[in-house]
């Protein structure tokens, strides 16, 4: 019997290696796998490259992971936001590498990685400093830059429901980066608010098929998120 449901955070985090590239789902707090990030802090892997839309807020979660010196590089679209204090400190001190990627390019680079597309062209960032050093090319009279797939070792995603085959659904705008990140990593670990029996999720409405998911951990996020 296939059973991707793990019973403990330790099982969920087992085997994440130093030097890994880790994708972290969510857009702000919504769809962010808070408990899995805490699990990663506990687990100990270091020298990480983290990919997330934001560079953490306050001194918890991703910000805490950075503050502990465990993040070598961050790839994101919106590093500086209200409360990104840890990022700003570390970045100013030269203790953190930064790669800024336009939000849609970031999403598409991960989708490409998941879809076996090593590179693609986009008009986004053409004529800006973010296109510096990138190959450019004209198609039908318009200029595009070539962008590369962004593949990862691990993805931490947050979902609403999950089953033992790893099928996931997301709730409203909590979907955001999560399905794309699930495709792009060798090991996708999902925290889910609800465990479903196999077949309970309507097959037409599975948002991330289990083929993209390795481990599912049940997390009760409490009444505020129910």
């Amino acid at each position: 019997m296939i059973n991707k449901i793990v019973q403990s955070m330790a099982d969920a985090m087992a085997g994440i290696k130093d030097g890994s590239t880790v994708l972290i789902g969510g857009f702000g707090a919504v769809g962010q796998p808070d408990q899995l990030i805490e699990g990663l802090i506990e687990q100990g892997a270091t020298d990480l490259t983290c990919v997330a839309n934001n560079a953490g807020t306050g001194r918890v979660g991703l910000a805490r992971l950075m503050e502990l010196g465990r993040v070598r590089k961050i790839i994101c679209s919106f590093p500086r936001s209200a409360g990104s204090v840890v990022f700003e400190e570390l970045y100013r001190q030269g203790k953190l590498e930064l790669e800024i990627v336009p939000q849609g390019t970031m999403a598409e680079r991960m989708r490409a990685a998941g879809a076996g597309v090593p590179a693609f062209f986009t008009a986004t960032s053409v004529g800006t400093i973010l296109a510096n050093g990138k190959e450019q090319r004209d198609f039908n009279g318009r200029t595009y830059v070539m962008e590369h797939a962004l593949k990862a070792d691990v993805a931490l995603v947050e979902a609403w429901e999950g089953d033992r085959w790893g099928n996931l659904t997301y709730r409203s705008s909590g979907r955001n980066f999560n399905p794309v990140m699930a495709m792009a990593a060798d090991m996708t670990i999902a925290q889910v608010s609800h465990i479903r029996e196999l077949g309970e999720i309507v097959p037409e409405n599975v948002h991330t098929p289990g083929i993209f998911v390795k481990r599912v951990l049940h997390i009760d996020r409490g009444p505020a998120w129910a």
Partner: protein
Amino acid sequence: MTGFDRKQMAARVAEDIPEGWFVNLGIGIPTMIANYVPLEREVILHSENGILGMGPAPAPDKVDPWLVNAGKQAVTLRPGGSYFHHADSFAMIRGGHIDLCVLGAFEVAANGDIANWATSENDSAPAVGGAMDLGAGAKRLWVVMEHTTKDGGHKIVERCSYPLTTPGAVSRVYTNLGVLDVVQGKGFVVRDLAPGVTLEQMQAASGAPLHTN
């Protein structure tokens, strides 16, 4: 000179959005535009984080913590709305399916260039978000912003001095002083003056020549 306040600027943009358009509204004054599109005029709002059919902010006791806009504020979903993931959301943007995007800006140039993400080349960690995708992908890019900086500096300029978000993308600018079209090969063309504002006043507040039709 009176001109528009922020709410009036938002309302003025809203007037020009026809029913049936798919519209992405940036953070700040652009977000306020939604408040001035009457619900019976169906304009479908898109949010980068995977929403079509966004509705107004909920009552404080009706906040759904799963449902936020691109500015991470609580919103609602209208009947007919839908959710999708980030790659699909930016496929809509990049693929030219969004009829209109309205952004704020630091500067807009006479050639349609927009600068709205980084205040200098030396700002080593600016936050770009989805601005470059929207600038390059939306069918139309309008800007709504104060006509000048707080200390009177020009934001309507001949050439942008800040790092560009997207070259040649802006087709219209709404400010507290009025409405300007950006016409290829011509530059800024005054479309409308705010109440109490004269063309001379608007020109004096602009760093590029203004034309009239």
